[in-house]
């Protein structure tokens, strides 16, 4: 963990690992797409729309997993002051937001033929929507600061405050929903799910997780390089400025 704290070491390791990771992500995605279309049968009630689940469920899992990763990274920033922890938060937030959006949109696409409506104020949907809003807030806060070093600890505090709040929000929304209407969600209960659906789903989950790791590491590398360019630009500007003030003396 601490060996990787050096950004150059991190860039070296990930530079070698990423081509392999991207290749396996591609293979797994193709495999899971094939399983979703040809192994998984049509559902007797849902027909072909059941296949949306192979994108929807992994996206929803990763939407939550990404926030957990960010909370760990926030601890890394605030407690251990790991130099890459803040890069990890910065890189993860947009990816988490996109996975949350994918979960919401595929849910809406599934809901229209199944429930007859794009959106219901169901407890689970509502809490995922709130999670999406929290991702957007985090991204907005990150963008409010020019200096990434200053933003790091501020954003980390918000990530942790949000992490403490997520179970409370989830609980309150569940409570609110049962108050208004009984849950009307078609549920997949773990053990009752048929193997021909379960295996494509698990494959898809693994494929999405590897994809997430690839995206996250690539975004972290981009962020490290972006910060280097920023530092170099600032240094060049400073040097140019001091050079300009020295020039009259040099001319003498």
């Amino acid at each position, binding site marked *: 963990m601490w060996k990787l704290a050096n950004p150059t070491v991190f860039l070296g390791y990930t530079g070698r690992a990423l081509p392999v990771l991207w290749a396996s992500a591609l293979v797994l995605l193709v495999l899971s797409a094939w399983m979703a279309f040809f192994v998984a049968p049509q559902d007797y009630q849902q027909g072909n729309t059941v296949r949306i689940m192979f994108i929807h469920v992994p996206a929803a899992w990763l939407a939550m997993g990404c926030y957990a990763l960010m909370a760990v990274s926030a601890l890394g920033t*605030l407690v251990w002051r790991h130099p890459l922890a803040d890069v990890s938060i910065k890189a993860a937030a947009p990816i988490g937001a996109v996975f949350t959006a994918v979960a919401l949109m595929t849910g809406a696409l599934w809901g229209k033929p199944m429930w007859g409506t794009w959106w219901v104020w169901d407890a689970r949907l509502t809490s995922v929507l*709130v999670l999406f*809003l*929290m991702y*957007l*807030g985090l991204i*907005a*806060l990150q963008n*409010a*600061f020019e200096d990434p070093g*200053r933003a790091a*600890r*501020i954003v*980390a*505090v*918000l990530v*942790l*405050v*949000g992490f*403490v*709040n997520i179970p*409370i*929000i989830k*609980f*309150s*929304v569940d*409570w*609110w929903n049962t*108050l208004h209407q009984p849950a009307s969600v078609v549920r997949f209960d773990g053990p009752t799910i048929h193997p021909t659906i379960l295996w494509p789903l698990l494959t898809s989950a693994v494929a999405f997780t590897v994809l997430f790791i690839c995206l996250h590491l690539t975004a972290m590398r981009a962020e490290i390089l972006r910060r280097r360019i920023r530092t170099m630009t600032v240094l060049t500007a400073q040097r140019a400025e001091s050079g300009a003030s020295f020039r009259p003396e040099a001319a003498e």
Partner: protein
Amino acid sequence: MTPFFTLVRRDVALAFSAGSGALLGVMFFLIVIVALPLGIGPDLNLLARLGPAFLWIGVLLSTLLALDRLFQADHDDGALDLLTLSGLPLELLVLAKCLAHWLTAVVPLIVAAPLMGLFLNVSPTALGATILTVLVGSPALTMIGAIGAALTVTVRRGSLLLAILIVPLTLPVLIFGIGAVNGAVVDGLPFRTPLLLLLAASLASVAIAPFAAAAALRAARG
């Protein structure tokens, strides 16, 4: 505790001094309450049913208004630097400023609530329940808001960002507040449970938020 109450007194005095716009929040509350029936229509029965929710959302939005200046005014003129040097722990400083904010920004809203209830044809029972739940739940709004105010203390035009960050975190307060009001009005729905949950949210945020806000202040002013 004397520095603590001195700070509370100072902030309350500042809030009501000339040019501080102490009652702008109440005016905003009034504007929101006037605009809603114009959008929905003059049906008094419908307004009576929606009234408590309007009052709660009005309080939530009006509370946000004054929050962006909670630390920023003192940060900009350097008073916050002096206050942090005074020996008062930053956590207590946050708590004192929150108490002053609650007294000057939220209590006027609660005082104005009966008038707003009148406009919305809210029944006395529902109005009483709304005022009670706002009284119990609004400390949580102020305390959670203080975290957002601390996070955005150095951000120019941070008020909109503050609202975006804070509103998702305050949704449980809104849910339990309205839930308790519904419990008071509709037979068969619980009143005590949401009220106690609301109280728990307020107490927990009073206990936890000063530390989070102080950490955010340290990080932001670093």
